[in-house]
């Protein structure tokens, strides 16, 4: 379980996050919504160790995340799926996936873990020897999510997984995410611009504005609040 308390991040004079507190539980999807520049990506980058925070803490199963290096946090079972260009285009599909297996799996478990991803996403299996640069946007998104899953993480941090995907593929992606969290007990923090689809799968939602949490509530209640929707969610 992830516990974030009073997390603050500044880039020079700019406040990116200010006193952010929330929890994300196992088996549940917590979505983080808000406009561009609200601090969503900064939040994920801080949790995965890419950005240093100035105040507050984040803990995962009681262990501090803040102050640790990204490779250590990844080894703890926190898998950050970065926005957009997370595919390593110079490597093949198979190499991308194998790379995900090194940190947390024993040598004998690695091949089977990669094959499981091919079973889940057969399109990737068909293209395993191809360069990842030849994949379509949807396939790339499958690859980065598959690569995160292959390490058998406990918590997924997803940054805009539906970005650039068609509505159909995006809906499939959300359904897969729902399935993974419910079945495997995986926790997920889902950052999305597409608030409507994120709210449809999430168990809990928080809305960021200028680095602060303005609302934290059940997705259904949030979606029903018209002024909130208009102000922060844009639908």
């Amino acid at each position: 379980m992830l516990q974030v308390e009073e997390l603050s991040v500044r880039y020079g004079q700019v406040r990116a996050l200010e006193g952010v507190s929330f929890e994300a539980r196992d088996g549940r999807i917590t979505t983080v919504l808000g406009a561009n520049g609200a601090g969503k990506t900064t939040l994920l980058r801080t949790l995965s160790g890419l950005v240093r925070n100035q105040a507050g803490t984040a803990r995962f199963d009681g262990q501090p995340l803040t102050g640790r290096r990204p490779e250590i946090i990844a080894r703890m079972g926190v898998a950050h799926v970065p926005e957009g260009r997370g595919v390593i285009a110079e490597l093949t599909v198979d190499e991308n996936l194998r790379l995900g297996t090194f940190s947390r799996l024993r040598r004998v478990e690695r091949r089977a873990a990669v094959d499981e991803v091919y079973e889940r996403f057969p399109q990737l299996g068909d293209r395993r020897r191809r360069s990842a640069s030849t994949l379509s946007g949807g396939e790339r998104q499958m690859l980065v999510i598959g690569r995160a899953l292959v390490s058998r993480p406990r918590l997924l941090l997803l940054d805009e997984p539906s970005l650039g995907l068609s509505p159909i593929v995006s809906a499939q992606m959300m359904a897969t995410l729902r399935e993974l969290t419910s079945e495997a007990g995986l926790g997920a923090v889902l950052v999305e611009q597409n608030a409507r689809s994120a709210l449809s799968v999430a168990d809990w939602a928080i809305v960021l504005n200028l680095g602060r949490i303005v609302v934290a509530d059940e997705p259904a209640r949030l979606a029903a609040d018209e002024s909130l929707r208009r102000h922060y969610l844009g639908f």
Partner: protein
Amino acid sequence: MGLFVDILLSGVAQGMVFAAVALGLVLISRATGTINFAQGAMGMFTTFIAFSLLTHGVGYWPAFVAALAMGFVLGAVVERTLVRPLRGKPALNPVIVTIGLLIVLEGVAGSIWGNVARGFPAAFSQRGLVIGTTRVAFSHFDVFIVCAVAALVVAIVALFRWTDLGLRMRAAAFSPEVSQLLGVRVGRLFTLGWALACAAGSLAGLLVAPLSSFSPYYMDLNLVYGFTAAVLGGLLSPVGALVGGLVTGLAIAFVGGYVGPDLQPIAALALLLVVLMVRPQGLFGTTEVRRV
């Protein structure tokens, strides 16, 4: 005909040495995106360490291995102490630091061992092999040069292509942030890249020392040729470094043999210029992966 064959053969041997220098440059360029101007000087320094060991009665091969090991250590130390602190700064900063390191290493070597030219022993005979009844300009030592550098290139390519460590090294080079998020200890791999590169530089230093007048500056020109070879090969490809080395070696040898040795450095610079104008990504590079 005899002259042509002799030039061809000596060009191959020289080219393999340039390939070893180029390989070091490629490994560092891949690891941290830096051009290491001290690549030659580091090889020079470790070869002088081998020289000291030899004068103290240590055997040739132990001294040879010790120099390679020192190169490995020197590369790792330089990455940790001089290059690592500059991560995230403009790309030119570490490049300037390596130029400083080049000057420091040559100065220190000069003050320890003196700025005089001497001889450095070769592992094998440097007399030309006799084929049929003619003696060609290719010695047992040249055979050793070709084999040693070829073995190094094969080992590096095998490391990158077929091992998990190599996959991690490639990933860290292409996409350090994503690699970190996958639990890859990127910093260690950069250190390893520098260490391997400088071991390759040491090998080049040991191989070329018997062929030149051995002083603290004997690697300077080899760095120019090695750099030409690396750029020719695309700066990121070990096989490119090998091919680039051979092309540069042959070009230099033919210019030296038919035109005159004084024009060799100018020929290398002309080659470099032509490559940068006609095919800046090199023979084995693609535009998108070229970073330097």
